[in-house]
């Protein structure tokens, strides 16, 4: 078995305690919630924190709250299983519930958390490997090395954002609350990404995501998530797309949004989707045509690379297929789009 490096585990019982510990230990400390991302990465020698601050005992960070205005507040340590099974989330943010239901497998979803999935480290076939493997390779740009094996001569890490829930949160116009030693601040999920695979988030590594806020959606809100992967469980996305449609009372599209993941370092919003779909009535031929056009937009804008496992050419072929199918599923109030 791979060995987990030694570290000191701190288990504060409130956010203030966690912030104080992160502040005290600085770069020596890392945050853990469910541990389904951090611990395997530590076993691979990707991180060697001296102190790990667990959020597991902080009661205020867990749970799903229905807001009076129709929105949701989801505590960061709410598990993915809770989120996937929550009737509230299914009703108010269906794409998010669908995405949560497809993260990893059932066992991992009972440990993995809402916040953990947002904060997931980027992934790459040249990075998520053991120390022996990476050493044999000569390491890579993201960790311990200077060469990118995805892009010849690449100077910027292109490890892929692989969090299923992130694109759904973007379509939902959600924001995240971070606690740090200056207090707390809200960051729009839309604005929290950087095109840098080494650390693809604007908030610093020491900031603690405490909760997610999903504003009330339109009356005619529709959402769905589509996920491409090899197996019906366990695997990270080979491609993911989140869809939001806002329909008027007649079922005509007023606004639309498509955000994709498992492409580059940050989730990618497909441009001009709203223009394409606006005014189209779901269930009609013209909507189906527009969904195809939106899929073509995705095809020209989203270009899978050889960063994560799986043939990039095939993943590219699937971009328009999954975008179109997910738009269609959202229009019909269905989803997720997944092969099993």
């Amino acid at each position: 078995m791979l060995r987990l490096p030694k570290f000191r585990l701190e288990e504060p019982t409130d956010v203030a305690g966690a912030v104080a510990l992160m502040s005290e230990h600085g770069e020596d400390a890392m945050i853990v919630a469910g541990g389904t991302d951090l611990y395997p990465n530590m076993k691979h020698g990707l991180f060697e924190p001296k102190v790990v601050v667990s959020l597991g005992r902080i009661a205020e960070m867990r749970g799903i709250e229905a807001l009076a205005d129709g929105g949701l507040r989801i505590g960061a340590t709410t598990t993915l299983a809770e989120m996937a099974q929550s009737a509230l989330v299914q009703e108010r943010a269906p794409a998010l519930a669908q995405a949560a239901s497809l993260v990893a497998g059932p066992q991992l979803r009972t440990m993995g958390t809402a916040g953990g999935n947002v904060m997931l480290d980027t992934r790459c076939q040249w990075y998520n490997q053991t120390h022996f493997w990476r050493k044999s390779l000569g390491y890579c740009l993201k960790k311990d090395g200077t060469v990118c094996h995805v892009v010849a001569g690449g100077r910027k890490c292109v490890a892929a954002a692989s969090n299923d829930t992130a694109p759904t949160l973007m379509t939902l116009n959600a924001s995240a609350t971070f606690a740090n030693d200056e207090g707390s601040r809200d960051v729009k999920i839309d604005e929290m990404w950087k095109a840098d695979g080494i650390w693809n988030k604007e908030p610093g590594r020491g900031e603690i995501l405490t909760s997610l806020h999903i504003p009330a959606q339109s009356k005619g809100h529709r959402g769905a998530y589509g996920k491409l992967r090899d197996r019906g469980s366990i695997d990270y996305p080979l491609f993911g797309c989140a869809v939001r449609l806002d329909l008027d009372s007649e079922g005509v599209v007023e606004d639309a949004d498509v955000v994709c993941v498992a492409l580059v370092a940050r989730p990618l919003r497909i441009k001009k989707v709203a223009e394409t779909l606006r005014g189209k009535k779901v269930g009609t031929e013209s909507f189906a045509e527009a969904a195809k056009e939106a899929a073509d937009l995705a095809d020209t804008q989203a270009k899978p690379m050889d960063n994560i496992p799986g043939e990039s050419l095939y993943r590219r072929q699937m971009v328009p297929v999954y975008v179109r199918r997910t738009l269609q599923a959202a229009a019909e109030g269905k989803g997720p789009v997944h092969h099993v």
Partner: protein
Amino acid sequence: MAARDIHGPEAPWKEFQVVGKSHRKIDGMAKATGEAVYADDIQLPGMLHAKTLRSPHAHAKIVSIDTSRALALKGVHAVITGADLPIKYGVIPWTPDETALATDRVRFIGDEVAAVAAIDEDTANAALELIDVEYEVLHAYFDPREALERSEPTIHESRKNNNVSKHVELEFGDVDGAAETADLVVKGEYQFHGSTHGAIEPHCAVAKVSPEGVLTLWSATQISHYVHRALARVLEWEPQKIRVIQPCIGGAFGGKSDPFSLEFCVAKLAEITGRPVKMLWTREEVFYAHRGRHPMQLAYRTSATKDGKITGVDAKILIDGGSYSSFGLVTTYYSGQLLTGPYDFPSYRFNSTRVFTNKPPCGPKRGHGSVQPRFAFECQLDEVAEQLGIDPIEIRRKNFHGEHTQTVNGQRITSSGYMECLDKVERGSAWRERHRQLPTGQGLGVAGSMYISGTNYPIYPNEMPQAGIQLKADRSGLVTVFSGANDIGQGSNSVVRYIVAEELGMDPTDVRVLAADSDLCPVDLGAYSSRVTFMVGNAAVDAARKLRAKLVAAVAEHWEVEEKRVRLIMGRAIDLEDTEKVLSTREAIQLAEAKFDTLGSTGAYNTPTLGGDYRGGTIGASPAYSFTAHIVEAHVDEETGRITVPKVWCAHDCGRALNPRLVAGQIEGSVYMGIAEALMEDHKVNRFGLHSGPSLLDYRMPTAIDTPDIETYIVESVDPEGPYGAKEAGEGPLHSAIPALANAIHDAVGIRLRELPFTPAKVLAALAEKRMSEGAAAGGAAAKAMAKKETH
């Protein structure tokens, strides 16, 4: 065949009492409750932990190794390198090309270079980082064709000017003549990729040396006996000073049937340090140890008459062996020798070449050497049927070789339930109503196969038994079986229990089994080539009948009746003619112990003389062959290329099911494994020679949700020489799952996939090609029609 080995398939007492019924596995509850002791559960006082330093280069010379910094680390007890264990070994005695640790050359990324024993795993790991190795990197081969064509450098110095591991060319009958006179010749090139076993338990070994100088090795192995021999050879110890024990094992599938580096290393480290030493490999290391399915490039030419009779099969196969020989000599033979049933064809030729490459070594995975050619040939047969307009099941019936016959390459066939297998799956799947009649995107495919129940090739030539059993009975009423066999989850300990209980008329739970401990148990050659139920089962019948004779004699004497009146049944001895006379088995044993002194018996099995009269003719010559038929239903999403398999029907002729539940389990496991490697699993290296994903995340083994529903049918042809007529069930039912899937895909969407695995990308490419050729054909037809019009 020795007279002692013929027992006949009949029940010992008219009707079977134990055999044929579903019983719990002997270790089922222990495994379910966590009580079972695996190698890694062993903790001994003062035990050290060992780790292996591995090569970061695919092919390199070792210029120097300096272990001094590692040795100086606090907590490190010993560091060994190739110089400490320089003697070469290999599971096949003719091709010893492995050393426990590299002596002067590394041949793949992950090859073992040095080993450290330390007070704990972390210290051992830290010490590995302190071993300084200087390498001179050599050209590495990842493509078997390049390895075949290029001779410098050679991967093994023993091979002069080439990288050929083994070449076999055999021809029976006139293959070229058959092709010339055939009504139809179908040719095709196929690629079978590599896959690995994925047993849930990683390799683990523990060694200790006792004060009187006995080395004990506990190892997760399926071949204790060959490990015993290899240890004696490499350590230069007398074999009687070595004890090899196989604890409970978490699956093997062929992946634990070589002697492995860690077994020698823990033994040597225990010898040096005087402390027990354990080594547990990581999952990544198991991927490097590999010994999985050989990638093969196969070219087939099948000749047939217009009524569908196969007249000739011609095969050329290039086998990618990876870095060492392992079982490669046998693999190369098996790639040709095992294709000659269940069909009769008068001419056959195969030309198989195994080459070395700088990748993890290949070896035997469930269906060793014959799964790949079976895939290619059963796809060919489907094409022959299609082109001749014959139903694919009918063409298989038409070419069936029958029972009690001989194959074109001289293998003796005894029982065969193949026709019944075809009948079962045909009916079960509603083939006649559904094949070629399902909506586009859905299809059914059929395929059949044959596999060995052990072979008469005992790896190292000797006249001694291939399997042995020893029984002990005493006045407590307990019968203990000492079995040499390696129970790797297939249930060999359960099988010997059922057999002994059957013969002695006992409750199976009063028969305990102690297995795979070389100090206590007679020799068995190991759990490979599906030999155990057949051979060890026969040895168990042999031993139990000898003990039974003693019990019957003692009881008859006690009752003063003829022996034929005494029957042992359900824990009692009864007099068939006098219902008043009843004794418990315990009382019968006590009478026998009084009459004959301490009670025991031994049993053994040896194969009869088998095989063709030519070099290699005994390799693949089995005392009995199992037969299988599969029908697979496949659904193909033409837009995503994704294949799903909602259902598989599998009928398997195992001779007689000693425990139907275990047989069904073997069939199901085989089907899962076959479909898994056909659709997902891919054991490969990347452009640097690094394993592309040595983890259970990146190596895509299907999860429960990805596996098909399976309908199993057990066919019992009752073999004349198997124990009660039993044959193998553990490997045969994998083979035809893969070609049946390929044929189902053709039925669904009209494409012939000849390159495994059947990824969605390949499906899309094949569909695009089909559309293009159809478009071209349509265009051509249109042009022709136009031309016709013009000339008119």
